[in-house]
């Protein structure tokens, strides 16, 4: 198995006009790990994820996805890199006018030429894997928030991507549903070996699910801690890290 990191972020700087969000940020994500990006509100977690998945291009720096620089990729090359990703957005991002089956089918139709029969089986399988078997004919407006997130995850997994990215998978969910999202992430990671990149500020999920984390902070526009979250909780002396992992008010 290739031991090179699957994602390499090198000296990334992100600015909106004259406002610096991230400055000179570098880190690696290893193959098959659950990697979480944590930090307080407004520290640039989601911004970092948007750079990784190619929705935005940093003003400086490079991001290598499986050896290819997504920041410099254009057209067909970028499309090929994007095939390696499945992304679960904060609000799910399901197309409201399409059923759950159609939401998944749109990905399969774009990237494969499989038969309708095979597609139907695949959709059934993907929905079953997130506990939504039999909901293929439902519109997103007809299901709950937690189900929407799971359906969006089924869509993100449609092509069995190498990397699954989650932007706040547990936001807006009750603790039980949030825990079930974490369980799905762990299950998919162990069964499929998929690399998971998760943006989160759900401490419980971070401690029970992540193999590695980076903690961003807006005071430095970058990383203030990285490593095993359980070790960070127990050993890190940085007051911001300590407050975050021990839920202490500032």
């Amino acid at each position, binding site marked *: 198995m290739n031991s090179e990191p699957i994602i390499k972020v090198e000296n990334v700087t992100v600015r909106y006009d004259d406002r610096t969000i991230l400055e000179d940020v570098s880190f690696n994500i290893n193959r098959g790990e659950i990697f979480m990006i944590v930090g307080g509100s407004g520290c640039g977690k989601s911004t970092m994820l948007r750079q990784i998945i190619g929705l935005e291009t940093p003003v400086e720096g490079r991001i290598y996805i499986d050896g290819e620089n997504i920041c410099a990729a254009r057209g067909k090359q970028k499309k090929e890199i994007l095939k390696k990703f499945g992304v679960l957005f904060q609000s799910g991002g399901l197309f409201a*006018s399409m059923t759950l089956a159609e939401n998944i089918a749109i990905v399969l139709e774009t990237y*494969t030429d499989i038969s309708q029969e*095979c597609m139907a089986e695949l959709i059934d399988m993907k929905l079953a894997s997130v506990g939504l078997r039999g909901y293929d004919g439902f519109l*997103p*407006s007809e299901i709950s928030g937690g189900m929407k997130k799971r359906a969006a995850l089924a869509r993100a997994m449609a092509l069995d991507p190498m990397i699954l990215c989650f932007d706040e998978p547990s936001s807006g969910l009750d603790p039980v549903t949030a825990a079930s999202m974490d369980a799905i992430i762990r299950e998919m990671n162990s*069964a499929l070996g998929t690399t998971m990149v998760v943006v989160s500020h759900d401490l419980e999920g971070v401690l029970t699910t992540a193999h590695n984390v980076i903690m961003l902070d807006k005071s430095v526009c970058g990383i203030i801690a990285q490593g095993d979250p359980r070790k960070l909780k127990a050993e890190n002396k940085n007051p911001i890290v300590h407050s975050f992992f021990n839920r202490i008010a500032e």
Partner: protein
Amino acid sequence: MKKTKKNKDCFRINESANERILTPILPLTLTNANAYDKQLATTKVVTDCSKITLDFAEANLMDFDSYLVIFINRIRQFAKEKNVEFAISGLPSDRRNFVDLFSRKITSELPEQENNSSIGRYIENLGKKFQKMWRDSYLLIEFTGNLLIALVKMPFQMKKVRWKDFPFHFNAAGVNAVPICLLIVFLIGVIMGYQGALQLHQFGADIYNADLVGIAIARELSPLMTAILVAGRSGSAFAAEIGTMKVSEEIDALTTMGIDLYQFLVLPRVLAVTFSIPFITALADLSGIIGGLFASLTTLNITMNGFIVELGTALTYAHVFSGIIKSMLFGFLVASVGCFRGLQASGGAESVGKFTTAAVVTGVLLIVLSDSVLTFVLQVLGI
């Protein structure tokens, strides 16, 4: 082993007396799905045997995806249908985890679903449509009632109405609509003038084109066209704006804060359109008549002076004011329907789009319907 059947691409089958061993050759990926499906369709996988084994010992499993599970399930299904024993060999443990995860869930029981016949579904859908129509009508009556109550209460609760929004909507729905309304009604006047000229000239009644254009524009066409344009501009805008507020829970926030939606949102919009539309209509009357004058002067043997004198004798205050009062009613209907449809939105962006379209369609329908009724009533009253 008796013989080996070589199927040239995807998988091969080794046959013995009682057992068939199926070995995948190409990677089990979605890219190869069609080739595998084609071969499965043309190959008798399970015949004359008591056991079928899927052997992955020689298979390329470096590259695989969900099709691996689909393929295994297909072979498993074949075996089940023929009541033949099924086994898998040579599948590495991590791949087995992958297969188990999906297979376990895919074989879970489906949630109970109603299984109606097609006639049953048709009747059910018909019932649902009537139910929706009934609910729509009920909501419209409720909205109208609430709006009338808000209007009655308005003189006593002037401070509760959000007058801050009135100038904004007066400007957006009224002033900004003037150029397009003038242009359209001017062109309608030109068309009307040319058509009238063609007919009247045959009878030597050229001068009466002024009567035709003036009365038609002032009584009917100017208020009608202005209202239709306002429905397209402002009715849709109100529906989209309020609909977006509804889906983003702003309306819920207003409700829970105890703020009257009608005084806060609906009245400023409805009053702004109702009181701005007569001014647009008056200007549009003038624009339409100028259009008619232009057409008459270029096609008929009449002078500008003659046209204006004849128009002065034919066009009465009743004609002009009936049109203007009608336009106020149209404005009231268009703005109310826009707000009503906006408040009906729920769910997401799709719903907002749907009710925005409905606002325009219902608005135009109500304009034409009320115009027909008013034309008849004014005729009977001799106005």
